[in-house]
């Protein structure tokens, strides 16, 4: 783990990454020889049409899935070698997820949803409360802490999902189509939030998206097609509309 945790070492490195799905008698190649490297505080996007392999790559980087061939090294851990338990530990400690449909736990309040990753980590109650309130303030939803997900708008729900992803201060946040269900204004709010987070907390964000609004915010764009990286370039980005100072947690 230490080998990739130094200041200059990459956060993620994939080598000839291949993922093949068996569908009945046929084989579907979702990723084909993908070689990528990501560093701390990157704001990168995996772009491409549906079925190009974006979500598959995110799942492997998030240790939710394993490669068929090749290697994916995340925070010094080789994903292909991780047991279920080790993979769960990696996710709980170092990786935050933001999903297309926010995936908030419906019976929990906003506060409890954001608190959940800290409960899994076994953080003490006082520390949890401080961190949850700071994360909610940061996404501008502290006054809705007692609300249930069903009482929130789509944009508010996604901001709660962001708070849940960042509350434990992970090194890496993986976001799968985070703005797909949001209107223009809510998309901008969410993207501004994540941009500021990346800048202030040095968190690495990797998106899977084909939303032009998201692409405008990216600092690096990786284009996938049929599981192959066909383009990888650094972009000029629009500045975040409402940069906020990240509160001390």
């Amino acid at each position, binding site marked *: 783990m230490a080998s990739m945790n130094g200041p200059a070492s990459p956060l993620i490195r994939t080598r000839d990454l291949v993922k093949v799905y068996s569908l009945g008698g046929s084989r579907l190649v979702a990723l084909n020889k993908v070689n990528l490297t990501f560093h701390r505080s990157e704001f990168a996007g995996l772009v491409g049409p549906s079925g190009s392999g974006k979500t598959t790559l995110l*799942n492997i980087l*998030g240790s*939710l*899935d394993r490669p068929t061939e090749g290697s994916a090294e995340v925070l010094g851990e080789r994903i292909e070698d991780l047991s*279920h*338990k080790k993979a*769960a*530990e990696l*996710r*709980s*400690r170092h990786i935050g*997820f933001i*999903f297309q449909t926010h*995936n908030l*736990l*419906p*019976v*929990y309040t906003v506060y*409890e949803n954001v608190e*959940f*990753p800290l*409960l*899994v*980590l*076994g953080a003490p109650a006082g520390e949890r409360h401080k961190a949850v309130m700071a994360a909610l303030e940061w996404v501008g939803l502290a006054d809705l802490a007692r609300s249930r997900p069903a009482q929130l708008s789509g944009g508010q729900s996604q901001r709660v999902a962001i708070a*849940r992803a960042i509350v434990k201060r992970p090194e890496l946040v993986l976001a799968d189509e985070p703005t797909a269900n949001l209107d223009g204004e809510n998309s901008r709010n969410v993207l501004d939030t994540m941009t500021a987070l990346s800048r202030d907390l040095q968190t690495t964000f990797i998106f899977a998206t084909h939303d032009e609004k998201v692409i405008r915010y990216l600092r690096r764009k990786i284009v996938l097609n049929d599981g192959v990286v066909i383009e990888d370039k650094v972009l000029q980005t629009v500045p975040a509309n409402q940069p906020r100072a990240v509160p001390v947690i």
Partner: protein
Amino acid sequence: MTIAKLALRNFLGAGMKAWLRVVVLSLAFVVIIGLQGLYVGMGEQMSQAMISAELGGGQYWHPKYDPQDPLELADAHGPIPAGLTSLIENGRATPILIVQGYIYSAGTFRSILLKGIDPNQHVLSLPTGVLADSPGSGPALIGTRMAREAGLKAGDVATVRWRDAVGTFDAEEIRIARVMNTSVQTVDSGQVWLPLDRLQRMARMNGEASLVVLANGTSGGAVTGWTFKDLDFLLADVRAMVRTKMAGGAIVYTILLFLGMITILDTQVLSIFYRKKEIGTLMALGLTRGSVIRMFTLEGAFNAVLAAVIGAIYGIPLLGLLASSGIPVPPVTEQVGFSVGDRIYPAYSAALVLGTTALVGVTTTVVSFLPTRKIARLQPTEALRGRLG
């Protein structure tokens, strides 16, 4: 602890549906404890009544005495063993002579047992004092069932007929000194109690008895030729009957428990089906499959925990009231083989309550766990897409 906390949050978050399951399961708790307590109480009541009125602390039987064999009864008598004399003299035992006979009353002859007992005995809780205190001749004591069967009441005179030790038939009049009310059928139905010395004289069996009853808590030594029957033996039929009734009651609560378990199983299966995206999210947030399985199992097990609490809230006052005031028993129960008096007082032991709690708790946990095994085969990526592997 964290998993338990999360499971409790999920359980409470499910709202009315969860509470409905809890109420159904709490009914199972209360019915199981209530029914079992009823049968235990009935058994204890019957045993105590029989010990008090008939069995005492055990009985010495004449070698030919067998209550199940009426053909041997004519020979089931003999001199009272010398080894029991001191106990009898000290009031710690009482002899009983049993002679088969007939009673003529209400225009019909009926087969009865004439039972001779010392009117001054205090070993059994029978009102035998009336056999000594009643003015006039030929006092006899009968129970309410016998009175009903023979159409007799206190003060009536009837004729009894018997065959004595030398085979001669004889007859004499008796006067009903008292009709006693007893819950013990076996000292009542078809029986007429007479003073022991009178029956010994009538049957030419002076100084003889069929059995000797020890006072409760008294122990007698070995007596040559006579067999000691302890309470385990004498109460075996009652206990077997209570066990049979408890087994019958078990059918009722098994059905109730089964319904409760089906509800929980159904909820768990549907829960895993509908919450697969949530399961995927939980895994993405760092829970292992084992933790998710534990969480779902605990969610199910909370049904039993809360059912025990809810059941206690209304069950303790309800069952406590029944235990103190008793449950009225219809007279018809005498016709189906047992009688315990006007009311049954249920008895609830700690073992019964703890055993029932453990039974429901373990069953609920197992039923809650079974569907969660599907999670062990679940891929997080499939779950996040809302699919089951």
